[in-house]
């Protein structure tokens, strides 16, 4: 017996996250009251997560093109040409709200979703990365969230069989009620075998593949488009449950039918499930779509049209197949033990029609569902400029050695080994540079080419000055890739912000995007895919603005790549880039002095480009034995990391007279690198840098088992490592809070 559907009332409309003016827009569009299922569909298609209604206007301004870009934003993932007939397919996406509510499953399905985006385009995933932001270590939930999220990312990626090779983990009280879980996946495809969502041809079968549809995740995307109140945990039933085993089968089966030439168009069922995937395939191909829900494989009986259309059950795909290949495709899916059902067809009506048990539940104009989604030019105000903090106005509270030991063992700067040892980062046997360095480097197949991959953002810079913060996030990703010897090619972004209906938050968004765009243009580092996550706010308090950048670079021969570890005793240490001793918004100021203030370091994009291009050329010439970019914690932290990684110490000259010592060691001026080279090559390297106009100076020599900074007492590597490796395991065992 059919259940009676609820009447459409203003309260029901509001429950669906639709504003009165948005509902009026629906009425005007279809000329009648929507059915209950149609209301659900509008809610799913017009929420912030799916429609980008607050962000679209600004995203259009980003640079997305370059000769090597095959597919920019708008498809499941971005695609770039990496030569030899191969393409790199990648994207980053957030699963913030689900991961706060149910950390293991939220994070796991975040990984599952982004992997699906990549293999939907015909690419075999070869690496995952992530960017995680947790609340203050003192917050009661932080330990539980770290534990669950890390286990969830590992649980999914390890089982699926893709190495998780890099990432970033930070803590700040502004994420207490709204953590960030951004997952990135990278795949390799043949440039002539890339698949898209655009359906073609009338009367072709629309096929449902993968796992069965259940009642999980209904309105997940709507949840992701609202701010959290105090009762966030009550939203647990909207979180999906991941099944990496099914996803692995789906991967193998999908790639097999693609290789056999069965597929016209393919779209994974992610946010807003069947609704979003079907509408997208039809709308992109200027076709109508007719679905018969009686054919949809369901996990439980009695599911309504509303539930089926809005379910976010995982590990599902929608495809349009060549009719003559249908039987072959079905046999492949059956071999892998997966569901395969023809649930509809393409039509020439440009209508989205859904039938269930003999009734038409939905009859909507298909293109307008996406195209006519609301578009807002929300009011925005810029963050007031902060005063530049003079280094001389910051009194060092402790000695350089004490500050270094404290910083290197602080929550943001400490080793994240406890995290990445739970991720299989070695499967596939191609991981050249492992987690813990600047960027990961993976070999492509049997080589010699490789990809350099990283994720970055410095949220405290973005909070203090969104334009500089946006620039810095892109510049740091570009630098991290450069420091391995690879050429940065393109990036994916994951824009995590608070409530866009607040002008100051919208201002952060607009200005960060401006900074990102400026840096991406100047560095020839276009944005090819991305995701926007707004409403990251709990009880009225927004997160720090966090535009995560996932960078991809290419190196022609992985044997030429270098890591951060000091490689030999007696190597010359060269500092590239200008050091003014910028302490505003630095890690030193925050962690050692207890102050979060001042303007962040400015990002000179001309200097970035010049210094980075020079450093990369030197690495590729084979004369650099180790390279590290300078970022959080400045020079002293970078030197300590290089010493610990190589178990080789160094003696460094004192700070120059013009810069206060603590600002020299811990300032965060941008566009800087440290190189180590054989002593006999040092002068040639300095000459080459001088010729390119890149400031550079030899600052010391590697050797011994301790790090000596100027006239300070040497710090043994063992002591550094003990502080660096100590904090996170202790914190997770509950033995320490800060």
């Amino acid at each position, binding site marked *: 017996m059919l259940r009676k559907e609820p009447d459409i009332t203003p309260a029901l409309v509001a429950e669906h996250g639709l504003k009165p003016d948005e509902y009026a827009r629906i009425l005007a569009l279809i000329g009648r009251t929507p059915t209950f299922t149609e209301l659900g569909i509008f809610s799913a298609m017009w929420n912030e997560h799916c429609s980008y209604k607050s962000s679209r206007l600004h995203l259009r301004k980003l640079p997305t093109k370059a000769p090597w870009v095959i597919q920019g934003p708008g498809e499941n993932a971005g695609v770039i040409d990496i030569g030899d007939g191969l393409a790199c397919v990648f994207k980053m996406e957030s699963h913030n709200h689900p991961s706060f509510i149910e950390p293991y499953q939220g994070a796991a399905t975040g990984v599952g979703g982004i992997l699906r985006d990549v293999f939907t385009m015909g690419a075999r995933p070869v690496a995952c990365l992530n960017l995680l932001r947790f609340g203050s270590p003192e917050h009661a939930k932080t330990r539980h969230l770290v534990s669950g999220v890390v*286990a969830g990312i590992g*649980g999914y990626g390890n*089982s699926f*069989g893709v190495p998780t090779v890099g990432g970033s983990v930070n803590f700040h009280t502004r994420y207490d009620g709204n953590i960030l879980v951004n997952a990135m996946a990278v795949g390799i495809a043949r440039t002539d075998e890339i698949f898209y969502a655009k359906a073609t041809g009338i009367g072709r079968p629309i096929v449902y593949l993968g796992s069965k549809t259940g009642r999980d995740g209904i309105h997940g995307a709507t949840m992701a488009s609202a701010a959290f109140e105090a009762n966030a945990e009550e939203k647990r039933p909207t979180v999906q449950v991941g099944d990496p085993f099914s996803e*692995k089968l789906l991967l193998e089966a999908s790639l097999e039918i693609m290789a056999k030439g069965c597929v016209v168009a393919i779209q994974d069922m992610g946010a807003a499930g069947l609704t979003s995937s079907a509408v997208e395939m039809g709308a992109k191909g200027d076709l109508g779509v007719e679905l018969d829900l009686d054919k949809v494989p369901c996990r439980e009986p009695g599911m309504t049209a509303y539930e089926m259309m809005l379910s976010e059950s995982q590990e599902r795909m929608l495809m349009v197949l060549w009719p003559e290949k249908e039987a072959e495709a079905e046999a492949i899916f059956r071999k892998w033990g997966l569901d395969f059902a023809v649930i509809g067809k393409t039509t020439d009506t440009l209508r989205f029609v859904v039938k269930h048990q003999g009734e038409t539940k939905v009859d909507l104009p298909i293109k307008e569902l996406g195209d006519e989604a609301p578009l807002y030019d929300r009011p925005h105000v810029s963050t007031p400029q902060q005063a530049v903090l003079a280094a001389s106005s910051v009194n060092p509270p402790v000695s350089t050695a004490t500050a270094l030991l404290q910083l290197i063992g602080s929550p943001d700067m400490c080793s994240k080994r406890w995290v990445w*040892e739970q991720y299989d980062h*070695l499967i596939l*046997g191609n991981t*050249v540079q*492992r987690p813990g360095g600047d960027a990961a480097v993976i070999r492509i197949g049997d080589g010699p080419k490789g990809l350099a991959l990283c994720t970055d953002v410095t949220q405290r810079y973005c909070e203090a000055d969104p334009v500089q913060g946006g620039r810095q996030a892109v510049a740091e990703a570009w630098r991290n890739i450069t420091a391995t010897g690879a050429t940065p090619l393109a990036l994916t972004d994951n824009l995590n912000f608070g409530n866009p209906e607040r002008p100051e938050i919208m201002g952060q968004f607009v200005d960060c995007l401006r900074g990102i765009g400026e840096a991406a243009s100047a560095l020839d580092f276009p944005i090819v895919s991305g995701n926007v996550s707004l409403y990251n706010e709990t009880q009225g308090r927004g997160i720090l603005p966090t535009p995560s950048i996932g960078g991809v670079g290419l190196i022609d021969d992985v044997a030429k790549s270098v890591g951060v570890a000091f490689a030999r005793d007696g190597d010359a240490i060269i500092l590239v880039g200008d050091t003014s001793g910028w302490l505003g918004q630095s890690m030193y100021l925050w962690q050692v002095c207890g102050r979060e203030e001042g303007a962040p370091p400015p990002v000179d994009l001309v200097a970035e480009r010049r210094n980075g291009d020079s450093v990369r050329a030197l690495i590729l010439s084979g004369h650099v034995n180790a390279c590290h970019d300078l970022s959080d914690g400045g020079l002293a932290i970078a030197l300590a990391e290089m010493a610990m990684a190589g178990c080789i110490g160094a003696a460094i000259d004192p700070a120059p007279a013009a810069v206060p010592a603590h600002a020299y060691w811990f300032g965060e001026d941008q566009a800087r690198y440290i190189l180590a080279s054989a002593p006999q090559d040092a002068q040639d390297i300095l000459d080459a840098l001088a010729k390119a106009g890149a400031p550079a100076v030899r600052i010391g020599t590697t050797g011994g088992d301790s790090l000596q900074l100027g006239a300070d007492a040497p710090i043994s590597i063992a002591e550094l490592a003990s502080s660096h490796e100590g904090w996170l395991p202790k914190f997770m065992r509950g033995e320490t809070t800060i």
Partner: protein
Amino acid sequence: MRAAVLLFPGLNREGDAMRALEQASGVKPTLVWHAEHDLPSGTDLVVVPGGFSYGDYLRCGAIAGRANIMHAVRAHAERGGLVLGICNGFQILCESGLLPGVLMRNKDLRFVCRMQHLRVERNDTPFTNRYSRQQIIKVCVAHGEGNYVADPETIARLEGEGRVAFRYSDANGELGGEANCNGSINDIAGVYSERMNVLGMMPHSENLIDPMMGGIDGRGLFESLVHAPARAA
């Protein structure tokens, strides 16, 4: 050497194992689907690679251990044929009864992926003839359930018969403590069958076959197999 690599749904290191086998032998191994009833004729070595067979949602390896193809693998082993199980493959061999014992959750209840030193206990087997006795090698581990457990009688028998293949150690060959990554009894990382023709091991030697990826200590396992006399009837 003709090698057959088994493929159960959910395994994911079959490519890594095949790459290592091909590098050592110059011959591409045959991939055998789990629903098959027979091994390719002339198979010298069966490799059960790592991964998460059937998602490992039940006990690890429990479903695969009872799959069709395992009857053929048992018969192959009874004929004296060589069988190598790595990680999930080790768990599958234990579940199928080809090897004693069971792999429990790691002692700290977390998945662990890291470089790992092993001590090669003996070098007079088809799997280790290219190593020296008590050699310390560096390979890697990647598992959540590698904590080898068996009853005291079984452990005593394995030790007495010299059937422990590898033990977790540190770089200097010291056993115990942090060097034991999962809590296995007696630091056991791999065990042989009674006739020494079946080896199950948790570490991934197949991922340490290239200097660029951290070392080549894993090659010895596959090169040993290539040089082992074929024993299958």
